[in-house]
C-alpha cells in the first residue's frame, strides 16, 4: 500500500521504509530535523507500528533517520535535481 | 610440495627436543608463533624468536596463553602457518581455544611439553599426565590428533607431520612432548628442503560467489579462504551451517559434529602412526610412547634376553588411538604392559580395546622422573606368569 500523494514540489527528498523490519523504537520520529515522521496506526506482522510520512513536503532526504535506525528499516534520499517524486516508498513485503 | 629452503636448517645437528621442534616448525613453513613462557617448553619459542627474523616471520610473546592460543589462529586466517607452545598449566588455559580451532577448522599446531602436575606441579621434571586432557580437555564432542615424539629427531620429524595433518584435515594438531624428550640432546638430521614433504594449505579455487566456507564436496574437509581475499566470509564458534552462519538447532549440530569427527576417524589409516617390533609370536606386548618408550625398549631387551617373547608397540600417534590394532593383538597375546609417566591414562584405551581378551597391566608413575627398566621388566615378568 503506497501512501497518498502529497504536495511535494517543496520536498527535496523522501524516505523508504521496510515496514517488516521496523520495531517502532521511535528514533527516526524523534530525531528527524524537520519532523516529517510519526508512528502510524498500521501494524506490521510483528505488531509494531512503523513510521509514516506526515509532513512529506518538509523532507530533505538528509537520511538522519537512516543513520539512527537500529533495524535498517528506513532511509532517506534526496531527489535527483529537478525531479519530484510521487510518494514515499513503503515496502510492505520486506 | 617441497619445504621452503629458507626455513630448513639442513645438516647434522646436536639439538635438544625443544630446539628440534622449533626447526621442524620452520621447515614445515611456520612463519608465525605466539607463546607465553612456561618451563619446560620455553626454548621452543626462544629459538623461534632468534631464528624467524632471519627466515622471514614473526614471533610475539603474548600476555598469557589465552592470547597466544588465539593469536595464532588470527595469524592463520591472515594467511600464515602458525603454532604455539606450552606445558601443563598453559595447556589447561588453552583448552577453550583448542575447541575454537576445532570448531572453526583452523589448521595450526599446539605443542605441549608435558611436566609434572596437577597444578604448578613439577615445572622442570617430566610427566605424561596430560594425555587424556589432550583427548578430552576442551568442552563438547570432537576428535583430536596428538603425536608423541620420543627423541629430538622425532621432535623435528613429527612437528612437520603435525603441520601436515593440520593442513590436510583442517584441525589443530597436538604435539605431546615431555620434559625429558624436550631437554635431551641428541643427533638430529635435517635433510635438504627438497626432501621434506610439506602439505600446502587447502585453499579454495572457487570464486567468491560460489564459495561456501564450510561446504564440502563429498569429502569431509572444506577448502579454506583467508581474510583479505575478497571472499567476505563469516566464521563463528557457534554451531554453523555451510555458509558459516550461526544455525543453532539440533539438526545442524548433528551434521556439523559428525562431520568434524568423521573427517578424522575416516582418515585413521593415514593418521594412526605406530611402531611395532617382535609382535608376531609375542606373549606380552609393551605399549608405550614418548620418553617411556626409550626406557621400555631397554626393559624389552632385558626380557628377551631371558627368553621371554615380548613385543613392542610404540604409539607415535596417541590420538586417534589405534583401537582396531590393539583389539586385533588382544586376540593373540596374553597381556599388554603399559608403562606411562602418569597414574594410568592411555592404558585405559588399551584396556578398552582389548575388550577383556588380554590382561592389561598398568605400570604407573606419578611423574618427576622416568621408570627404571627393572620396574617395567618386573611387570613383563608378572604378565607372562
Amino acid at each position, binding site marked *: 500500500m503506497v501512501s497518498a500523494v502529497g504536495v511535494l514540489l517543496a520536498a527535496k527528498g523522501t524516505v523508504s521504509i521496510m515496514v517488516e523490519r521496523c520495531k517502532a523504537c521511535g528514533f527516526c520520529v524523534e530525531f528527524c530535523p524537520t519532523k516529517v515522521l510519526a508512528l502510524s496506526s498500521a501494524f506490521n506482522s510483528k505488531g509494531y507500528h512503523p513510521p509514516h510520512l506526515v509532513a512529506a513536503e518538509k523532507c530533505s532526504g538528509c537520511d538522519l533517520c537512516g543513520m539512527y535506525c*537500529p533495524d535498517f528499516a528506513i532511509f532517506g534520499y534526496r531527489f535527483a535535481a529537478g525531479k519530484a517524486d510521487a510518494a514515499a516508498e513503503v515496502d510492505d513485503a520486506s | 610440495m617441497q619445504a621452503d629452503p629458507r626455513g630448513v636448517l639442513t645438516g647434522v645437528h646436536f639439538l635438544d627436543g625443544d630446539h628440534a621442534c622449533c626447526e621442524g616448525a620452520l621447515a614445515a613453513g611456520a612463519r608465525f608463533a605466539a607463546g607465553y613462557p612456561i618451563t619446560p617448553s620455553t626454548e621452543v619459542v626462544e629459538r623461534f624468536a632468534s631464528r624467524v627474523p632471519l627466515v622471514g616471520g614473526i614471533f610475539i610473546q603474548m600476555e598469557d596463553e589465552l592470547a597466544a592460543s588465539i593469536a595464532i589462529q588470527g595469524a592463520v586466517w*591472515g594467511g600464515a602457518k602458525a603454532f604455539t607452545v606450552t606445558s601443563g598449566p598453559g595447556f589447561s588455559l588453552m583448552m577453550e581455544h583448542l575447541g575454537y580451532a576445532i570448531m572453526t577448522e583452523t589448521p595450526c599446531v599446539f605443542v605441549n611439553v608435558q611436566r609434572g602436575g596437577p597444578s604448578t606441579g613439577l615445572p622442570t621434571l617430566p610427566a605424561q599426565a596430560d594425555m587424556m586432557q589432550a583427548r578430552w580437555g576442551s568442552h563438547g564432542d570432537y576428535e583430536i590428533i596428538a603425536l608423541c615424539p620420543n627423541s629430538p629427531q622425532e621432535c623435528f620429524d613429527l612437528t612437520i607431520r603435525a603441520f601436515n595433518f593440520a593442513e590436510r584435515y583442517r584441525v589443530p594438531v597436538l604435539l605431546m612432548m615431555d620434559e625429558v624428550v624436550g631437554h635431551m640432546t641428541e643427533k638430529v638430521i635435517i635433510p635438504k628442503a627438497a626432501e621434506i614433504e610439506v602439505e*600446502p594449505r587447502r585453499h579454495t579455487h572457487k570464486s567468491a560467489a560460489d564459495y561456501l566456507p564450510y561446504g564440502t564436496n563429498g569429502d569431509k574437509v572444506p577448502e579454506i579462504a*583467508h*581474510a*583479505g581475499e575478497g571472499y567476505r566470509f563469516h566464521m563463528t564458534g557457534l554451531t554453523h551451517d555451510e555458509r558459516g552462519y550461526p544455525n543453532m538447532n539440533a539438526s545442524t549440530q548433528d551434521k556439523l559434529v559428525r562431520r568434524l569427527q568423521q573427517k578424522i576417524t575416516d582418515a585413521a589409516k593415514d593418521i594412526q602412526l605406530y611402531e611395532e617390533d617382535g609382535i608376531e609370536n609375542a606373549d606380552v606386548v609393551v605399549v608405550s610412547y614418548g620418553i617411556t618408550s626409550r626406557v621400555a625398549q631397554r626393559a624389552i631387551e632385558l626380557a628377551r634376553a631371558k627368553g621371554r617373547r615380548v613385543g613392542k608397540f610404540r604409539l607415535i600417534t596417541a590420538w586417534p588411538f589405534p583401537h582396531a590394532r590393539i583389539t586385533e593383538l588382544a586376540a593373540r597375546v596374553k597381556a599388554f604392559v603399559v608403562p606411562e609417566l602418569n597414574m594410568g591414562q592411555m592404558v585405559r584405551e588399551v584396556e578398552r580395546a582389548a575388550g577383556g581378551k588380554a590382561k592389561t597391566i598398568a605400570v604407573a608413575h606419578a611423574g618427576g622422573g622416568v621408570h627404571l627398566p627393572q620396574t617395567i621388566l618386573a611387570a613383563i615378568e608378572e604378565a607372562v606368569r
Partner: protein
Amino acid sequence: MSAPNVVNPVEPFLRSDRMPHIWCPGCGIGTTVNCFTRALIDSKVDLDRLALISGIGCTGRVAGYVKLDSFHTTHGRAIPFATGMKLANPKLNVVVYSGDGDLSAIGGNHLIHAARRNVDIKVICVNNLVYAMTGGQSAPTTPGKAITSTMPYGSYEPSFNLPHLVDAAGAVYVARWTTFHVRQLARSMAEAFQKKGFCFIEVLSPCPTLYQRRNKMGDGLDTMKYYKEKSKIRHGAPTPEVGLTLNGEIVVGKFVDRDRPDYRELLHAQMSETLGERYIDETELVCS
C-alpha cells in the same frame, strides 16, 4: 513512481539474508552499524581488505551481520585474534567490534596490552553498561548504584573509565560518543580507519530490555533523549575526568589523538638496527 534504484546506504554492507537481526527494539547497536558503514564509505576503505573481529555478546553479533570477512571469536579474545591477523597480513584493515564486558572484563588484559604495544587495530567498544546477551549482569562499566541481575540491590563496585584506561595503556586515538551522536561517531570511526596505531572508540548505547528497564530509565528513545540532554562535547578533555555516573553527565568527544610508532614499526626498527642486512622483513606471512 518512486525511485526504484535507491538503496539504503547500509544495505550493501549487510548480510540481508540474515535480517532481521536479534537486537531488541531500542537497542543502539544497529545504529552504530549505520555509523560504521558511513565511515567505511567516507574513508574509502577497501572492503575486501577489511577484517571485522568480534567477541561474544550482543555487540559481538555485529560480525555475523556485516558482509565483510568477519570473525566471531571467543569471549574477550577478539583483540589477540586481531593482533595475530594484523601481524600476519599488515595490508588488512583490522577492526575489533565488541561490547564493554567482552573488552574490559574477560578481555581487559588483552585490551591493555594491545594498547601498550600500539598494535594497528581499531577497536569499537559499544558500551551498554551491562552484559546484555546473558540477561543484564554487572559489567566493569556498570555505574555505582545501578541495579543489575547480579547486583540486585544496587552496584557498589567502582566502574571503569574506559577512555582513561586505554589512554593510560598507550592508545593513540581515544574517543567517546553515544548512539545519539551519529554523525560524530561516523566521523570518529573514519578518522580511526585513517590513523595508524591502536584506536579506541567507546559508544554508549541503550540496553532498554535489561539495563534501562531494571533501573526504571525508560526505553531506548528515553535513553537517547538522555544522551542528547546530558552529553557534553569536550574534545581533548583529560581522560581521568570523563568517568560516568548513574544518570550523570556524559563527556563525549575526541580525547586523545597522538602519534607514536605502531607495533610493526617498532619491530622493524629494532630488527633492522640489530640485524641489519640479515633481517628478513617479510611483510605478509601468507603460506602457499
